């Protein structure tokens, strides 16, 4: 309905508040979620700007210094080879976040398409597609991933695909559930009885009402993915040195935690805070987009 003549004619009329606007208003009131959001923005900003703002270079070693606790020169201390921890954590953020977002994107694409098709087409197609999901769900994926990374070496690509392959299942189930719920609503029946084409029904009626759920679960999948990647890196299976994600930094920190606790605590803290922010934001989105609330 976006046509300049039309818009001009409608312009003088009082605009209503859409559900999305309602949701954002609710979200803005949620302090924890907004805190998480801003922390996340901060971390993303830092990781994007790292090559320019990192205090030291990534590999720069200072063997004379060795491991040293936080100081004016090195805010978060140094590791055994005298490398600045702050810099390493900043570079680590780039990797962890990148894996998080890309693997989630993989999971999102497969999961949403799968779930949407199963839910919309229904019938036998749905039954078969979900059976496959159920069967795959039962597999010990974490174990498979460990195997994969050991056997084929840990390339970034493999990591993305492997992690994405685990996470898409949950997304598919959720999307399918939501599609089924919306499909049963009477306004979809009304659209059908009006003779609208399937494409129009999907794009105008189904998708806008499913998107909310997708956004929520995407936000909740990212921390799950980052956690999985960190776990693999911790076991030595993920990102290989010299590149290091938070997981491998933590792994190194554990080895020397008695003597140099800061090598464990800082990366651990940063990882935890990032996950906190993502989860709070996801929770906040879920509360804000809760359809029940809109009936008030």
């Amino acid at each position, binding site marked *: 309905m976006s046509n300049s003549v039309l818009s001009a004619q409608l312009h003088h009329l009082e605009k209503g508040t859409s559900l999305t606007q309602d949701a954002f208003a609710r979200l803005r009131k949620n302090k924890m979620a907004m805190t998480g959001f801003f922390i996340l923005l901060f971390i993303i900003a830092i990781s994007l700007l790292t090559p320019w703002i990192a205090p030291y270079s990534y590999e720069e070693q200072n063997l004379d210094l060795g491991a040293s606790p936080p100081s004016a020169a090195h805010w978060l201390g140094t590791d055994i080879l005298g490398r600045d921890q702050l810099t390493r954590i900043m570079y680590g953020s780039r990797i962890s976040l990148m894996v998080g977002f890309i693997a989630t994107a993989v999971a999102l694409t497969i999961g949403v398409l799968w779930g949407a098709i199963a839910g919309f087409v229904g019938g036998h197609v749905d039954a078969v597609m979900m059976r496959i999901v159920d*069967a795959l*769900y*039962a*597999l*010990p*994926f*974490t*174990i*498979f991933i*460990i*195997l*994969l990374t*050991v*056997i*084929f070496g840990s390339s970034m690509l493999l990591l993305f695909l492997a992690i994405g392959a685990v996470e898409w299942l949950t997304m598919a189930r959720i999307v399918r559930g939501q599609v089924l719920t919306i499909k049963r609503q009477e306004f979809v029946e009304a659209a059908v009885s009006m003779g609208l084409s399937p494409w129009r029904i999907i794009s105008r009626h189904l998708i806008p009402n499913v998107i909310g759920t997708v956004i929520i679960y995407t936000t909740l999948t990212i*921390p799950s993915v980052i*956690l999985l990647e*960190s*776990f693999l890196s*911790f*076991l030595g299976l993920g990102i290989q040195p010299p590149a290091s994600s938070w*997981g491998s930094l*933590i*792994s190194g*920190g*554990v080895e020397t*935690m*008695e003597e140099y*606790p800061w090598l*464990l*605590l800082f990366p*651990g803290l940063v*990882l*935890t*805070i990032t*996950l*906190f922010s993502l*989860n*709070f934001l996801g929770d906040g989105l879920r509360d804000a987009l809760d359809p029940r609330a809109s009936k008030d």
Partner: protein
Amino acid sequence: MLSFIVKRLLQALPVLLLVITVTFFMVHSAPGGPFDKDRAVPAEVLKKLNAQYHLDDPLWKQYLDYLGNLLQGDLGPSFKYPTHSVNDLLAAGLPATLELSFYAVVFALVVGLAAGIVASLKPNSAQDYISMSSAMIGICMPTFVLGPILLLVFGIWLGWLPVAGWGQFPGDKILPSVTLGFAYAAYIARISRGSMIEVMAQDYIRTARAKGLSSTRIIFVHALRGGITPVVSFLGPAIAGLLAGSFVVESIFQVPGLGRFYVTAAFNRDYTMILGFTIFFAALIIIFNLLADIVLVWLNPKMRQELRGSN
């Protein structure tokens, strides 16, 4: 009930077969054999070893041989430790892993349910925020961060608990179990809070209140039966993660379980070990999922009756 169990077990067999097959071919398709990594082995000896273990047979034959042995319960010898069979090694590490997992689950259930129920009684109150914030920590702090931190604080700085060992020092089972169970306690707390709030808003709880029953009775006799369902649904698949998590905990706290064996086996291309462990874990996961499903059915009167065939 019995036919339900049998039916589910039968459905699980193809999945198990799939796991075995996929794992087998994955492992064998990796470059390098199990003996390549050792200090330079003379070519002849290498050939002999490969022949001894049938590693030069066509792949499909190795596969079928493996299946055959499997049916007899024989998981084969470990390549890394040829004097021991995989079965032996499994038996050696299994008790510790099982015990650790058991304690972790008990901890998770008790603490998680308590926290969740307490939070659900007064939503958006202090007890709710405290409970759920603690739960959030459990979800956001990975086991491999929490474990070392707990070790650092309680084992090294305060010196209250032993830093390693399993069954050798008093209290040495506490930290590993708590570390492993903490994340699950967090999930259970959140899930049970949500479901208890939902259940307490149900009409039949209002009826119970209108009957003048005490709060304790309402929560534990009326609400809990419905509220616990999502927790059981969660626990079934969670076992897979629990096993994976136990690897980390075992290495941090030096617990003599299966975890350490598994990772080293992967690094060493110890085919039989990898296969044996993977199959074992997969079977465990399937059994636990089945158990969880059985409990779910048992909790629901409608489904329970269907199974008994009565109506």
